[in-house]
């Protein structure tokens, strides 16, 4: 079977992302927010801060502390999941923080905290990557100074084929999953995980493919941010 003819469960080509929709500034109460749909994933991210750190002893004298909470709503998966934080949620919150931290000028806000809350409303594989992508947009929406955006997507392997952006089925039944987050301007990988089995060469190809995916997602993030400000301009013009 040639690479061109082979099609995935959802009909995509091996190097094709799922349809992605990103909106910024969706939550009135948050300082910054974003909503992302990546295939059937639906995730909303809120950013609060920079604000005073509570509890105070966790504050750093020379920089802000970034805190990330990743949470899946009980109805986001089948079967229902318990609403409390799982060990998986804790680990994902941590790797999200590591993925976003290098992009933020934390040193501009000593003693403050910046809190990122990702709420997964529907999960269909690749939620940590979609959460990071949305969180980067939400951080910009909050007006936090950034070195770069962070875009994220996974690559992996199923039935011997290297593929981009695994859905839930491909994640479960595939041979490997490699989530990657990437800062396109600074050319740095900020999230890298893998489970499954890959030869070193396949792993390299997965990372390269995921980075290509991230570059595409980066454009969508920029468009989402621009669109928001175009809307503001329209509103102001309308008022005049």
């Amino acid at each position: 079977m040639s690479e061109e003819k082979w099609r995935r469960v959802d009909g995509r080509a091996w190097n094709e992302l799922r349809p992605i929709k990103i909106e910024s500034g969706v939550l009135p109460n948050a300082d910054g927010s974003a909503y992302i749909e990546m295939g059937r994933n639906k995730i909303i991210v809120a950013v609060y801060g920079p604000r005073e750190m509570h509890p105070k002893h966790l504050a750093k004298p020379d920089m802000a502390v970034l805190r990330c909470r990743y949470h899946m709503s009980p109805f986001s998966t089948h079967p229902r999941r318990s609403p409390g934080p799982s060990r998986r949620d804790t680990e994902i919150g941590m790797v999200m923080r590591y993925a976003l931290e290098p992009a933020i000028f934390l040193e501009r806000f000593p003693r403050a905290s910046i809190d990122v809350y990702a709420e997964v409303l529907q999960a269909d594989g690749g939620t940590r990557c979609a959460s990071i992508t949305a969180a980067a947009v939400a951080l910009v929406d909050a007006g936090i100074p950034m070195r770069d955006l962070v875009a994220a997507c996974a690559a992996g392997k199923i039935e011997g084929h290297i593929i981009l952006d695994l859905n839930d089925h491909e994640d479960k039944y595939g041979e490997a999953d490699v989530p990657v987050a990437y800062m396109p301007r600074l050319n740095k990988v900020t999230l890298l995980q893998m489970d499954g089995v890959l030869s070193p060469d396949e792993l390299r190809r997965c990372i390269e493919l995921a980075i290509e995916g991230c570059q595409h997602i980066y454009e969508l993030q920029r468009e989402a941010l621009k669109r928001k400000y175009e809307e503001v301009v329209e509103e102001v013009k309308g008022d005049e």
Partner: protein
Amino acid sequence: MSRLSIIPKLKRRKILDAIASGRRMDGRGLEEYREISVRRGVVEKAEGSAEARIGDTWVVAGVKIEIGEPFEDTPDEGILVCSADFAPVASPTFEPGPPDEASIELARVVDRGIRSSDALGLKDLCLIPGRKVYVVYIDLCILNHAGNLLDAASLAAVAALMEAKKPIYEVRDGKVYPTGEVEPLKLRRLPIAVSMAKIGDVIVLDPTFDEEEVMDTRITVTVDEEGNVCAVQKSGPQGLSVEEIWKAIEIAVNKAPKLREKLEAAL
């Protein structure tokens, strides 16, 4: 953390200077492990146990095997549960309390290497599909934290599994009865975790506690005996270039066989 943050900054200078000369603070080369030792059978009441030491880092792993119900989505597979306790005996930085994110990550990355390589053959650990399966618990107890807990924990976990024996059950009329006999778990793979720290522009193997305190990021690559990668975890507040990632994969694939020898030679 905040009051201590000035010390790592001073330390980082010294560590970077040492690395720049090609030798680390403890005299090691950049791609050199500390002394490694693995000993099996340290706790008789466990179904399998082992301790691993890397320099002054010391981890004990115990395996307990019980019978339980399978998960709904994997009715014909046994269950692997891996957890880690950062006991306050191991470091002035550890406090009693529920597992924090570092201990959760450690357990999950050790788990990922064993699970991805299917070292246990979870399908062989099913007694009655949908009803009774073996549950293999790996509990990691950190006794001394001198850096690179992950590689030591992974060595201890796999060594404990290598000598673990599971009770044999007889399946009769949809029920399981203990026979009183035991048999080895029979591992299919020996996954080896190899961790490196990026400090400045340099990748160093097997970071010490001080090096971890000042590192930009850590990357762990777990490798099976065929040289395939079965887990990766980047963990730390800075990014990596793709060249650094390629280098880390290469170092891990080259170093893993030497660690596996230590496992196989362990008594």
